[in-house]
């Protein structure tokens, strides 16, 4: 019975113009989004790896120079673009990809593409993930809103039930038909994309990406499944097709468009982000405080760079000064980043009414474009900066400090530059993403089960009204 119902519904749906037009549009948009994302990624990755290599090469061949000047010039490091960023660019456009590792200060990741964008940026970015998160639920609603109500209005439901068709078969048959319509649209494109992505990767990274794709498929499956069962439930519960449509569209607007924005505003009130000025002032204050303490313990000086500290101690002083700041930097940046993560965790609860919020976090996480992975990169970049500072300061202590007032006439050569290892950053593995986002997946699963239960309840009610 299940198969017969599914086959009949599928036939009805495929004959209907709604699926053809709306589905066709979604597929075209999906292809455009994939092509654009692919194009961007190929270009970015080759540019970034070339940039990284050039930068390190310039570091090695900078000739003879005072090591602190070398640290002033520093080095740029680039965040590699995860291969699934084609699918979900996540926060990428809003955080940038380059860190300048220079002396004295921890830099933030800069050059955010969104700063080069026009007012249209506010409407969002066309990505395959956006299509699946926003437009596909709409498509499910549009093709499925009358799948039960229409049968009731035409009187075919009465006939069907009189034949002894169990409601369970009715529900799953209709769900299967709706799901296959969506499947027909996205599965071929998705599969081709997955194969292309995996084939392009070096063998070592393939397994990780395959796992990521599988988890993404599970997450999106639960999300779209939620909409399939919700649509059937509302279609069965509502008095007419018109009411079902209005209710479902209302839910879609509220849950996919309004809730994410409201949630981010609300969590900002709950865990306020500091202003740039407050943050900078606090950081400067903490660094100066730590500096003063360190200078007085090490050199008995009242202030940093006190005239009482001779140049024969400047290498050591640089080291002390830098190291004194590390704690303050870690604490201040850590606090800021914790605030961001707390804001995001608070938003996950909104996933209980608007599953798109939970899905977005999960999708970005698995695609490798979420905040936790950005933080991981920033931390690695800062560790590299400190490595450079330490190497440079040690060398100054050993060589320049001996020269007294001629401290700055000291020049180090290629041997010193070569002791700084090349910055190699490996994107965290899938388990890192899962550890951060399992709660979102669990939430999606709960929402899915709830929608199935609601649909079962709706269809088991007397349908003969």
């Amino acid at each position, binding site marked *: 019975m299940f198969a017969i119902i599914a086959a009949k519904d599928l036939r009805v749906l495929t004959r209907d113009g709604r699926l053809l037009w709306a589905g066709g549009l979604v597929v075209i948009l999906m292809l455009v989004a994939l092509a654009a994302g692919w194009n961007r990624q190929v270009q970015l990755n080759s540019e970034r790896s070339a940039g990284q290599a050039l930068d390190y090469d310039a570091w090695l061949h900078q000739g003879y120079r005072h090591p602190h000047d070398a640290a002033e010039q520093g080095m740029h490091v680039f965040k590699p673009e995860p291969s699934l960023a084609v699918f979900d660019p996540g*926060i990428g456009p809003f955080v940038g990809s380059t860190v300048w590792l220079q002396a004295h200060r921890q830099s933030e990741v800069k*050059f*955010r593409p969104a700063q080069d964008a026009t007012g249209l940026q506010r409407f969002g970015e066309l990505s395959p993930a956006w299509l699946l998160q926003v437009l596909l639920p709409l498509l499910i609603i549009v093709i499925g809103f*009358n799948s039960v109500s229409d049968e009731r209005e035409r009187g075919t439901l009465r006939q069907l039930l009189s034949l002894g068709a169990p409601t369970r078969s009715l529900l799953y048959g209709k769900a299967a038909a709706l799901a296959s319509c969506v499947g027909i649209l996205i599965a071929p494109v998705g599969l081709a994309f997955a194969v292309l992505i995996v084939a392009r990767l070096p063998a070592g990274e393939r397994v990780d990406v395959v796992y990521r794709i599988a988890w993404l498929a599970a997450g999106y499956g639960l999300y779209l499944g939620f909409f399939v069962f919700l649509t059937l439930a509302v279609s069965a519960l509502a008095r007419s097709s*018109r009411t079902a449509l209005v209710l479902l569209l209302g839910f879609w607007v509220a849950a996919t468009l309004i809730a994410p924005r409201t949630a981010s505003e609300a969590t900002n009130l709950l865990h306020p982000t500091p202003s740039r000025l407050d943050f900078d002032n606090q950081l400067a204050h903490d660094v100066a405080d730590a500096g003063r303490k360190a200078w007085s313990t090490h050199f008995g000086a009242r202030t940093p*760079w006190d005239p009482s500290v001779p140049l024969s101690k400047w290498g050591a002083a640089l080291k002390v000064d830098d190291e004194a700041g590390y704690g303050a930097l870690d604490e201040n940046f850590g606090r800021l980043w914790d605030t961001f993560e707390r804001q*995001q965790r608070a938003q996950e609860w909104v996933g209980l009414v608007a599953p798109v919020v939970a899905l977005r976090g999960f999708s970005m996480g698995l695609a490798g474009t979420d905040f936790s992975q950005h933080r991981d990169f920033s931390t690695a970049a800062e560790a590299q900066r400190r490595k450079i500072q330490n190497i440079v300061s040690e060398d100054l202590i050993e060589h320049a400090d001996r020269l007294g007032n001629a401290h*700055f006439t000291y020049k180090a050569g290629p041997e010193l530059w070569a002791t700084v290892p090349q910055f190699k950053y490996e994107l965290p593995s899938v388990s890192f993403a899962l550890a951060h986002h399992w709660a979102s997946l669990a939430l999606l699963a709960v929402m899915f089960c709830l929608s199935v239960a609601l649909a079962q309840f709706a269809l088991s009610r007397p349908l003969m009204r």
Partner: protein
Amino acid sequence: MKTMHPRPLSTLSLIVLHEARILVRDRTLLLVCCVLALMVGYGLFVGLAQATLRDRMVSQVLKHEQEVHTANSGTLQSVLAGQTALIPFSNPANPAAMAGTLSGRYATMPNAPLAALAIGQSDMMPNYYRITYLSKVQFMYDTEIENPWNLLSGHFDLAFVIIFVLPLLVTTLGYNLLSAEREHGTLRMLCSQPVSIATLMTGKVVVRMLALLAIVIPLPLVVLLLIRPEARGAEQLVLMLSWSALVAAYTLFWFAVAALVNTVGLSSSTNALIMVALWTILVLILPVTMNLAVGLVSPAPSRTELANRTRVATAESLREYEDLYSADYRYASDPEALLVKNERIEVPSRMRAFFLAKQKVDERIEPLLKRFDQQLLQQQKLVDRLSLLSPAMLVNEALTSIAGTDSHRFLAFKDQTEAFHNEWRQYFSPRIQESRAMTMRDLSSLPRWHWIEIPASEINWSIWWRAMLMLALASVLGGLALARSSRGSIE
């Protein structure tokens, strides 16, 4: 027997009254209006909170600048009187220290008086820069701190309510203007009365539109006038008028679409589907597709290239001033060498090198930075043209320019900042090169920042032009709907 000639106006007012009574009893209108009022209120609250935050930023940085200035004056006075132990990096008599770490000015852009109406680009772009001798790449990309997730979600501001939500509420009120009458069998009865369908539909639209506009237009404007005194100027009132015209024209456009869809003679469900499909295409899909297209047609220069060029330029300038960098540095152990003698001061060669090297870096990457700005301008021009494709894009651009949160204004700020940065350097350059010590007079004659607002006439023209276009579009669609309705069938 005298034939009754229907008087269109009195019939219309009769329909309007009757329709209003039905809608009030039905509670749909009340519900929709409450939802709209709540959203408008919340959107305005978010906009006001952002505007207040940015106001606070500007006043804080200016206060900070004042404090630093006072502290510097005090130190300089005691340095000139020979009272303070001298630290090379924080000696205000030293022009190189004053150009960089010690002083610096803030270039600030105040909120436009109507900033609360749309957040626009203001969360991505800074409204103040700290100007020192540092190179542009070191300060030009600093922005206010914001959770990237929130930037991605976008804000729930008034512009969002108007552009995204308002058309959906229009759809809720208008998808079954005629189809419901047809489905209930009342259309046939109405047609037997001396009333044309066009009049009937006009009456229905008028009630619904007035109800929505009565909330969406006065509510924000009254709140703004009450709590933001700067919104009360004549120029602002004109802007508010154009804002109202735009919102009204945009609402009218969506009602015209609803009316046109209703004249086709399809079922209510199909009408709702068509309206939602149109909304999806015009408000959701077209703008994101155009965003992509703009990036493809007029791509931003590579940020990676900028990073590379910065590195090369930094390396070259460091090399160029190598001799200055590696000179003897006796000042640390011999602070007396930093004393002011005959209005002259020995600028430590290393500090002079810092100044010169940063200046060189800017000269070298200037062309590339210019390309970024030009590209943004070009993109914006493209957006201006493409916005004709979607009313949502058209209205968005106009709403952000009324609020002063559009990219035109930020580009103007960036331009003026760059000019000021150059002025700042030019002020110090001769002093550093000629080893002239800073005097108290110098301290009070440091270059000052003045923001020059974009002339209102420029904005007004582009906004009214857009409002008129929107109105024309709505009239064409509305006219088409009225023409069709007079020929339409009631089945």
